[in-house]
């Protein structure tokens, strides 16, 4: 099942399928599917995205995990370079160590393997809100140039939306309280928009100083990983700036999939291609979870 506006992705709660699929409709798929020096097998743009997202997580970090793409990335990191990554799910599972990819944020395997299972009020009040969690890992239906996230409605009229999306879930406070936020999202002009129709979760507001003015304690989105590349907020403008291109992706492809005039880092890098080890781990994970 591919993602579409009528089956939207959502943060911190399930909506996108847990299994990354090939994306034949994507301009990047053909490029990404080519094999590189790192890997001996072909891989898809979605696989590159999950692997790039996983690499951003470091051992010992605590990570508040949204389902779908974020969960795939976080579980992949725990299977590869970050075995002591602490996974936290909004269902109350602290330190979950699932042996297969969970299909929801409340799968039994999360509770069975967690260091502690606490109530939902407790996970938000005692664990998220005080800023104990290093990284909040979110998805998005729309993401704008300042990293604001929409998972509520498509269209300008809340009362009469073009598309009613699932809503906020845990995302607004994850985006507020985690020390940093990573976002993982499939990129297109539909998802990468100049300004979101509805601010469900605040990124960098309308620019520099907005998070401080709003009293948001965390640093906000410091990293956005898509199937085309990696974006980071410009230190001065806070605008999402392309800092890495995935292997085989051309800059024009990224521009074509971005709904605003794309800023590109002076030292634009190439994401290292997936290694065989990463691909094997990812495929084992998504196969077990499906």
């Amino acid at each position, binding site marked *: 099942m591919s993602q579409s506006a009528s089956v939207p992705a959502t943060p911190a*709660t399930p909506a996108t399928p847990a299994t990354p699929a090939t994306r034949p409709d994507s301009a990047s798929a053909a490029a990404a599917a080519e094999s590189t020096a790192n890997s001996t097998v072909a891989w898809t743009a979605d696989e590159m995205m999950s692997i790039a997202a996983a690499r951003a997580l470091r051992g010992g970090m605590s990570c508040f995990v949204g389902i779908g793409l974020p969960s795939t990335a976080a579980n992949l990191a725990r299977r590869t370079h970050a075995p002591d990554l602490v996974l936290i799910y909004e269902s109350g599972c602290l330190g979950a160590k699932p042996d297969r990819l969970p299909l929801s944020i409340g799968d*039994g395997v999360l509770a069975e393997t967690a260091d502690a299972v606490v109530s939902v009020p407790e996970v938000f009040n005692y664990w998220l809100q005080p800023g104990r969690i290093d990284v909040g890992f979110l998805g998005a239906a729309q993401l704008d140039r300042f990293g604001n996230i929409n998972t509520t409605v498509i269209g300008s009229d809340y009362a009469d939306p073009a598309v009613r999306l699932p809503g906020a879930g845990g995302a*607004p406070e994850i985006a507020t309280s985690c020390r940093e936020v990573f976002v993982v999202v499939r990129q297109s002009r539909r998802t990468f928009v100049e300004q979101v129709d509805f601010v469900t979760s605040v990124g960098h507001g309308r620019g520099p100083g907005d998070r401080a003015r709003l009293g948001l304690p965390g640093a906000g989105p410091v990293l956005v990983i898509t199937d085309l590349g990696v974006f980071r907020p410009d230190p001065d403008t806070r605008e999402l700036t392309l800092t890495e291109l995935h292997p085989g992706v051309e800059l024009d492809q990224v521009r074509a999939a971005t709904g605003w005039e794309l800023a590109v880092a002076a030292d634009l890098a190439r994401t290292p291609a997936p290694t065989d080890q990463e691909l094997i781990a990812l495929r084992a994970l998504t196969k077990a979870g499906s």
Partner: protein
Amino acid sequence: MAEIVSLPDAVADLVHDGDVVALEGFTHLIPVAAGQEIIRQRRRDLTLVRMTPDIVYDQMIGAGCARKLIFSWGGNPGVGSLHRFRDAVQHAWPVPLELEEHSHAGMANRYVAGASGLPFAVLRGYRGTDLPAHTATIKPITCPFTGEQLVAVPALNPDVTIVHAQRADRAGNVQMWGITGVQKEAVLAARRSLVTVEEVVAELEPRPGAVVLPTWAVTRVAEVPRGAHPSYAQDYYERDNDYYQAWDPISRDRDAFTRWLDEHVFAGAASPQPAVSAGGGPGASTPTNAGSTS
């Protein structure tokens, strides 16, 4: 002390037209059978409350039970959207659905306030989002010590809360374990409560991670085996992922949904849990090939 009764009797006693009704259960232990019993008893004008309205609320909304939904995330977990919910919001079918929309943190704290006998709760939430502009039940509040501005949300005190648990004893003490979500708060916040359970046992053995609701904090208990299907009951049965997939095409189409309702909810009025088949799907005639839904 909780009275142990049948599910139809419990719903008939506790759930009235126009009530504020919360069915809670966070992925795990969702009281689906009770929700379908509410459909079967044709309740109307309910204000439905739930952090994560999913299939059972899609069914209740599609059946016309609800005039309002108070929630924080509405979707078919792992699959996509709730089409009956969207049809109600976007096209007022079968009746208009008013929304009162929060974040999970806000909803959880509203139940906490309700359970605590307080009129409101305070959190560091919603800042900078568009939610306060559309939700009247989010207001600023100032710390009287530091002057910091935070957010207040009003208590949720449903007329009835319904949850599902693994066990009760014969005195009506309830025990649940695994992911227990916001169920304790939702029950304690409510004026009346119903707990459906997998089984009534002679004695509740202590278990790691178990939450116990004493009988004097519960109004009714009903034994409903597989009452959380297609969600799961830890140590009883697994989540029926095929059901969630198969729900998508049924719910996309008004006629298919109406047929499903007639065949799998209303037709079963005589038998106790007709819509809760042991098999993998919302009904025997339903294709469960998830691949066909994309």
